[in-house]
């Protein structure tokens, strides 16, 4: 079963579901009694970002650190100095939601030296077979190496987050397993979990190793 470490980095193709996964991880950790800090390091996306869920985090006493001007009209990729505090926090579970692709991972590159000094950390590459431009193993491998290059960090865990939003069924997820297994082999990064929304949990029982159930937090305001 996948376990969070004290320091966790979530990266991947933009739109693969990193933000929703990060929120789930943060809430689960908080429910286990951990003190959690979630870091929205996305300097690319103007909307649909972790920082928009502040009130949800407040409910769980999760600390949110984000880029300056997140969710405002100011389109400037700047980070506040407090971001550096994540390397000095003791007894906290840190979850870093990185922006999509190599562009989004660039900001991580600036922290790579400090991250490498950490005793232990998860650097999770999130994959989604149903996401445009990461539908094949080849495309997903290519994307990974672009992220590795710009973040100057190597992933040590793979999470299969393949889904089709509200059209996700048990077979949507089952049909992504070959893709995920193949990526585990080609990238030589352990596949630590396959996610599934709670509404298909029963159908997937005993069919998937390391099943990680998630709730859907990231959705349009009219749903």
């Amino acid at each position, binding site marked *: 079963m996948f376990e969070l470490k004290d320091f966790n980095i979530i990266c991947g193709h933009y739109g693969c579901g990193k933000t929703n996964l990060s929120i789930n991880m943060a809430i689960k950790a908080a429910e286990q009694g951990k003190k959690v800090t979630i870091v929205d390091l996305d300097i690319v996306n103007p909307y649909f970002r972790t920082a928009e869920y502040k009130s949800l985090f407040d409910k769980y006493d999760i600390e949110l650190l984000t880029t300056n001007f997140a969710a405002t*009209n100011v389109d400037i990729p700047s980070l506040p100095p407090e971001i550096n505090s994540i390397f000095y926090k003791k007894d906290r579970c840190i979850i870093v939601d990185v922006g999509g692709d190599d562009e989004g991972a660039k900001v991580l590159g600036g922290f790579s030296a400090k991250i490498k000094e950490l005793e232990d950390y998860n650097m999770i590459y999130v994959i989604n077979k*149903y996401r445009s431009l990461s539908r094949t193993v080849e495309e997903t491998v290519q994307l990974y190496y672009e992220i590795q290059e710009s973040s100057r960090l190597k992933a040590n865990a793979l999470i299969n987050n393949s889904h089709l939003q509200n059209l996700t069924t048990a077979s949507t997820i089952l049909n992504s397993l070959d893709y995920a297994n193949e990526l585990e082999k080609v990238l030589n990064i352990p596949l630590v979990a396959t996610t599934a929304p709670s509404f298909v949990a029963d159908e997937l029982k005993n069919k998937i190793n390391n099943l990680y159930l998630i709730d859907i937090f990231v959705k349009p305001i009219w749903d």
Partner: protein
Amino acid sequence: MSEKILMKGNEALAEAAIQAGCKFFFGYPITPQTELAAYMSKKMPKIGGTYLQAESETAAINMVLGASAAGVRVMTSSSSPGISLKAEGISYIAACDLPAVIINVQRGGPGLGGIQPSQSDYWQATKATGHGDFQLLVYAPSTVQEMVDLVELAFDKADEYRIPSMILADGMLGQMMEPVEIKEGHTPKVFDKPWALNGHKNSRPHNIINSLSLDAVTLEKWNIARYEKYAKILENEQRSIEYMTEDAEYIVVAYGASSRVALSAVYEAREQGIKVGLLKPITLWPFPKKALQEKVPTTKKFLVVEMSMGQMIDDVKLSIECQRPVEFFGRTGGIIPSVPEVLNCIKKMGGVE
């Protein structure tokens, strides 16, 4: 291959254009449509097309004019302030009777405004995109799938009528992700373009594409001829989609992202026993006047919901010739109306509460 995949609205617009046979894209980056240009920059070289980031919006739209004059399918995209910069070129394209697809992923205005979603360019798109007597075909998608479907239609109708067409989207639709089906590898419709500047090879008289008239009488004739074409479009191209209007006493009119909010509110109002439906214009020009007129006898009141201070409401009033009261609810500056806010308006309109 046509299985469902997840795409951002901006990416879907780009891929749909490629599948519709668009081989040329000229643009200039602006939030919140940048992913569209980024997608084009990745894909166009792979399919033997041209992606060019111009030095300005003005340059990009004039490249569109040139490419269209040469007879190819061409597209540009921008967001509100960028469309204003393109307005002069769009007027020239319309004056030259050239087909092209222009995408506006609207953000808050006026001026530099903001980068959050908006629908405040309705007047610009439907009434006065540039100077002179002209119209654009304007399509308003409200889902990522509609974005895909309407891009191809926009190309086809632009070619059919020799008119620039616009996809009027908004930042929410451009940025959001939804499952879509894109028909890959189908053959797009090909239109004969005997007017194109593609080389006469000494076998025909040379073609001229021009918007300058040397005398007023000729210019008036051109304008009258163009309005004869517009009359055909007004007659044949009105499109709208209706939800639960069969027995509706109240009708909400909304397009794009605000129609998604309105639809959720209509469902909730129905659960509370209010006979309300939604009419969603798909074409903003030509405005679906006929569909609205048909509703007048059975409708007590109309409610228009927009992400603006109220622009489309004018067309609703004109369409029904002010025979029924038309109410309005809008948020602006990048704020999206919420379902409870719209539901509240429906309840007031229905005399509940």
